[in-house]
């Protein structure tokens, strides 16, 4: 079942001769239970794409349909409310409210949607426990490591049972081990809870946890990899390259956008 559908979406910045086309006629659909990675070099339009899919930005043309509603046609206020109900979000950083505990951060989405009750509170506790934070429920973000904070953000993104879960570079501030743990758990929960997940990432090593990799270049989708074997090869190659293989200028290739170039993506 299709959870999110983007139909011919285009985003222009500026007008006249200085117009920049950030996203150009992109169509995309994501099924429930499907986890998708959006990759590409800087300026490829993937962040703009994610912002439009999240309802943070209106497309210049095209339609974005989530839960049967075209969010591009909604007013600012309605889109904000829609995001709170139908979209889960994690960011690179500044994910959590610093003065709320881990549990309170997760419960915030339930409170925002008027769904905070004894059962949902227990569900928030269970989810955090599942993410290995059972002993950290009352800790505030400042008392948690970067990986633990990301896991709290994942719990918050999923607790209100959204239609779509979006992640913007969720591993950007994590070390390799933590990054794998976080994305693996994220993928498991998306599959288990039958949500549609989209992750924007520079780190192709994380591709092994997704069902489909979509590469964007110059505002368009340039390649889609849906074959499991190909995805694992890509992730494996990225793993191989990570710090081991010298690039053309003699320096190690770091996980990042250079990697997409090296891997021919």
């Amino acid at each position, binding site marked *: 079942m299709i959870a999110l559908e983007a139909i011919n979406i285009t985003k222009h910045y500026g007008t006249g001769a200085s117009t920049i086309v950030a996203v150009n006629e992109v169509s995309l659909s994501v099924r429930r239970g499907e986890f998708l990675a959006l990759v590409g070099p800087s300026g490829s339009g993937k962040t703009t794409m994610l*912002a439009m899919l999240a309802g943070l*930005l209106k497309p210049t043309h095209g339609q974005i349909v989530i839960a049967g509603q075209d969010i591009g046609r909604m007013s600012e206020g309605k889109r904000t409310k829609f995001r709170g109900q139908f979209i889960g979000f994690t960011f690179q950083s*500044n994910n959590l*409210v610093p*003065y709320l505990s881990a549990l*309170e951060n997760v419960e915030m989405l339930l*409170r*925002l*949607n008027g769904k905070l009750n004894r059962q949902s509170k227990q569900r928030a506790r269970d989810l955090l426990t599942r993410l290995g934070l059972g002993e950290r429920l009352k800790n505030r973000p400042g008392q948690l490591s970067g990986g633990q904070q990301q896991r709290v953000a994942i719990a918050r993104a999923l607790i209100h049972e959204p239609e779509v879960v979006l992640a913007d570079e969720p591993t950007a501030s994590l070390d390799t081990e933590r990054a794998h743990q976080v994305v693996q758990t994220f993928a498991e929960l998306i599959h288990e809870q039958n949500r549609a997940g989209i992750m924007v990432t520079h780190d192709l090593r994380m591709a092994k946890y997704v069902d489909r990799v979509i590469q964007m270049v110059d505002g368009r989708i340039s390649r889609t990899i849906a074959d499991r074997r190909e995805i694992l090869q890509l992730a494996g190659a990225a793993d191989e390259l990570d710090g081991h293989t010298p690039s053309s200028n003699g320096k190690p290739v770091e996980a990042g956008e250079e990697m997409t170039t090296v891997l021919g993506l």
Partner: protein
Amino acid sequence: MAVYLALKEVWRNKGRFLLIASVVALITVLVLFIAALSEGLASANREYIEKLNGELLVFQEGAQLSTTASRIGRDRIAAIRRVGGVADAGQVGFASVKIVPPDGSKEFDASLIGVEPGRPGEPPVLEGTQIERSSASDVIIDAGVVARIGAKVGDMIRVKVTQGTDEEFYDLRVAGITDRRQYFFQPAIFAPLLTWDKIRPQGADANRQGELITNIAVVKLQDPTTLQETAAAIETDVTKVEAVNRKTAWEAIPGYAAQQSTLTTQQFFTFFIGVLVVGGFFQIQTLQKVAQIGMLKAIGMSNWTVGWSAIVQIVTVNAIGVMIGAVGTLALVANFPVTVPIQLTGSAALATVVALLAIGPLGGIVSVFALLRIEPLRALGMAQ
């Protein structure tokens, strides 16, 4: 949600918010203290005139409503009493003397106010009896004198005056005690006119045999609603006099208006500083929270919730500060010695507190608008 977030943040950052509440409290103390000082100084200046049992005060024309420059003699008093609408008029004279405390402590200044027994100008006593013409050494003292020397009805008090170049001492019997009726910052002694005329400091060449001349006349009206008409009638029927109501009279006390406007200006600027301090604090806090607010908006929090949360926080912190400041000021004022002209009336304190509660958050409004303008994409670094 808004209230929850606002109060959680305050509670979890008690130190930071207590700091700004303390600053608000200190500003409140300062504003209330200025209000109390303003009221105290005004009272010390005008108390006797304000509480007079007469609606009009008559001054000599050209004296510019100055009690020391004005001269009203017996003939004018008699003429005033004949004016239609006047129920009675009393001669009142002002002078300054020193009270010599019986315990040997330092002498202090007092207003010696000459009044006609039984006529307007004589204060009602709370203890003892009114003064009579026949008892020349009997006086009424106000509560201000009692507070300083602890005199009781029947006690003798000693006053010192300088007649010409000589110091003279007079012993007066306390016949009655009235409430606080200070005049020109000094506690008051009310003496019969003849006694006042004998005691009051005069130059060596003073004509003690002449007409009994005092400073003003206090007029009680038959019908207080005819104040304007009666004042006009007095000015028409009696030569070279000027009749005004009590408020006009005390506002003409030398320095009164300038003093009050100075204190009002100080109060205004302290209010203004308060607004800036509250505004500055919340503005800095807003700048520190841009990314966090962007995230909250991105995950579905409305502008209304964000704005309302900020307002709840500003109002709460301001209210806590104002309350701490108000309680502190009340405790402070209650412990001041009676000689300090500090007077915090309930209505003045309430008005100031309400003004602080209302004006303080105005400074924070700028930060609320700043919060509403935060764009999630830009705040989260996702903008193109």
